[in-house]
């Protein structure tokens, strides 16, 4: 297992390095950073000084080296627009995105897995058929449309839930949470449902397909032939075997929940990293874009590592080599 983890770590480093290279090349190819930073009346002398001070005259590999060293320490330079360290901006916005993604992931799992199991066990029931049809709608409707429809219905017509922002937040040192206030929790409902819906239907369909597969296996048949009640057969034997592939997809999807929260954040004006990123694109604020790219890649890599470790916990066959 150690050598396996070591290999994975090595791969992760290569991935991060590549992403960093792409992020870094943005600085060089998406416009001239000096032009982006200074006003029109800055003299050529001042521009050259600034260029020298920012190290933009160094050879490219040296610049890249500096970028990597700084990025590894969480330093992505200053935002062109706000003139504050990018890391401060990102870290201020991160709790909003992470809380949203977390709630969505929980929603997707808590609703998706039981629905998947239910539709697999009661294949021909009317409820199952209804759920399957609805899930098709969930997969095929784009999230922004779902978001807008939810706003229209619950926000504008019924006036039950807030339609934008995080509501009141409580600060803990550097973390701001919306979990502890009523308005914060209320604000979470619509965006998290919007973000979760696609993942929920995906997980549900995956669990259903896997479960149907597992229910056909010999060991399930043998468990029934031993007289085990359905409850034990379905949940102890079948479901656990279903979870191995589900973990992979869920892990990957959690990463994309964070990465693709952009659309949901835009629809609900959710003050998270995605919204920051969208604004940065409009402003050509390259340091923020680069930092966002690297952060998201980091989340993906991290989650994948955790998934790999989870495999070991779930499947004893993988542990066999160590014995």
């Amino acid at each position: 297992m150690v050598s396996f983890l070591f290999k994975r770590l090595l791969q992760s480093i290569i991935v991060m390095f590549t992403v960093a290279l792409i992020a870094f090349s943005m600085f060089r190819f998406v416009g001239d950073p000096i032009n982006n930073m200074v006003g029109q009346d800055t003299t050529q002398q001042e521009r050259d000084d600034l260029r020298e001070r920012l190290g933009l005259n160094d050879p490219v590999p040296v610049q890249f080296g500096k970028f990597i060293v700084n990025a590894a320490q969480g330093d992505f330079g200053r935002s062109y627009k706000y003139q504050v360290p990018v890391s401060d901006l990102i870290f201020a916005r991160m709790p909003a995105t992470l809380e949203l993604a977390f709630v969505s992931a929980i929603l997707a799992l808590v609703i998706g897995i039981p629905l998947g199991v239910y539709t697999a066990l009661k294949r021909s029931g009317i409820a199952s058929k209804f759920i399957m049809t609805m899930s098709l709608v969930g997969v095929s409707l784009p999230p922004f449309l779902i978001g807008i429809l939810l706003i229209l219905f619950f926000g504008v017509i019924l006036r039950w839930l807030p339609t934008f922002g995080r509501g009141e937040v409580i600060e803990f040192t550097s973390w701001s949470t919306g979990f502890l206030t009523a308005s914060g929790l209320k604000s979470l409902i619509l965006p998290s449902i919007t973000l979760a819906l696609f993942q929920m239907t995906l997980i549900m369909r995956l669990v259903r397909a896997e479960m149907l597969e597992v229910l056909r296996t010999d060991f399930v048949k043998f468990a029934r032939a031993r007289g085990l009640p359905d409850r034990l057969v379905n949940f102890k034997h079948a479901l656990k075997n279903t979870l191995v592939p589900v973990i992979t997809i869920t892990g990957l999807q959690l990463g994309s929940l964070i990465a693709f929260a952009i659309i949901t954040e835009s629809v609900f004006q959710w003050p998270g990293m995605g919204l920051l990123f969208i604004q940065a694109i409009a402003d050509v604020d390259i340091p923020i874009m680069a930092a966002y790219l690297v952060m998201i890649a980091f989340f993906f890599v991290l989650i994948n590592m955790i998934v790999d470790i989870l495999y070991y916990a779930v499947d004893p066959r993988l542990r066999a080599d160590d014995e």
Partner: protein
Amino acid sequence: MELLNIKNLQIEFPSRRGTVLAVNDVSLTVRPGEVLGVVGESGAGKSTIGNAVIGLLEPPGEMSGGNVYLKDEQINTLSSEEKRKIRGRRIGMIFQDPLTSLDPLQTVEQQLVETIELHLKLGPAKSKEKAIDLLRQVGIPEPEVRITNYPHQFSGGMRQRVVIALALCAEPEVIIADEPTTALDVSIQAQILELMRKLCQEKQVGMLIITHDMGVIADITDRVAVMYRGNLVEEGTTEKILGDPDHPYTKSLISAVPRPDVRLKRFPMVDYIEKEGERKKLLDISTHWLGQARDFDAVEGPLIEVKDLVMTFVTKQALLKKNRQMFNAVDGVSFDIKQGEVFGLVGESGSGKSTVARMISGLYTPAAGTINFGDTDLTKIKSEKEMDYYRRQMQMIFQDPFSSLNGRMRVMDIVAEPIRFHKLASSNAEVEQIVTDLLDHVGLGAQAAVRFPHEFSGGQRQRISIARALATRPRFLICDEPTSALDVSIQAQILNLLKDLQEELGLTMLFISHDLPVIRQMCDRVGVMKMGQLVEVAETENLFKDPQAPYSKELLSLMPKLDKLSHRGLEVEED
């Protein structure tokens, strides 16, 4: 008194194309301590009976008639909850494949204790004690330690013992065993059958054993019921059925079982089942395309010469080379195959016999050693083009007829592909004519060309594979367990076909099988393999009459004894 009494059982599978009668008016009884065998080929409905008795018929199958009694209690009319309580508690079930019968994510202990607690209402500590005791009874060494292991940590035979222990948990009155040894090697099969018979007698359990294997029937059963297409054609004591069968199907089935005791020229009367297997239209090899261009480079001496062949697999990956664990699947194997000879390789699973075949055909690259095809060392050839020249002369027939044909291609294209690739015919019309002839020649009929593989049975598919192999006009054919996935009657037909083709075309063959009787019928010389090494090479008849190596003796002694089988009234021609 009867323990299990099945009366006029009728099972239907409704489908879009009408209702299929899977089991038609079958009555069977099992007495305490008795082993009843139900024998038949695939599609005979024998497994369906077992599933119906324990109330686990796969939908849409349903019992449309008949009754099942356990002692005097009628059990087919019970509610599903009451049926569940009988399963495991009063009727135990053993399935075919021990590798898939156990939940891979739970330890043996968890699975045993769960079942014991459920049926015997014992506490966890008592249950574990009982579980260890059961494992000891089925012959698992060090049960106290092994019980904490996961299924994958056991070998196939040991897993089947665990499955038997699980079936015995609640001391059932009846055990239904559905092909309990089919997935196992002969040596393991002998042990498992011995164990099952012993348990049966000691505990006075009645056993219903469902199998296609006459060897198993001869070995363990007291009485036999023969099934054919859902009907019970004959029933009686094992001696009577095997020694003096009345029904023509039973006779045909018995004649198709490869004989371990004598080598026959062909299998007699095996046409009861697949009538279309007859080769009606035969080609005149001397004038047909198939018989031409057989003037290969003349070879002096043996056609194939294998020397010190080694194949290594990495069993444990590691970053550093010295930490890697290697396993020699084939370890210094040398033999040669003369021109026109059928050379057999026999051994149990994992002995490396298939690996040898794959190395000769170029699917694996050997770690060391040489493979001479005539005068050319195939391991030295670098260019693909030069290799193609030898690939054309060398074809392979695989074990599994279901996965060795591309399901998206029509049979025409499957068989034509090698002809087109090697440019062996000038026009498309000629290619199609050749394919049609080949299909006729292997007994399929030309109309097979426009169909897809899934429309054919296992035996027919294997005929397609043979036609495909012939399509390059090879001189050397490698058959890797070509019939082990087939029913015996189909096996007999395919083996007859291979014998005929070998004779007609003067083919040289490497024939791999785990089945000694099949080897005896097919091969001129045999190599016996054990754990990657060749322990003996001998003329087939010499090996069977007077084996030299201890392992050969052991293998031969484990061969199912088929002396009980009748061969009276069969026209056999000894070879």
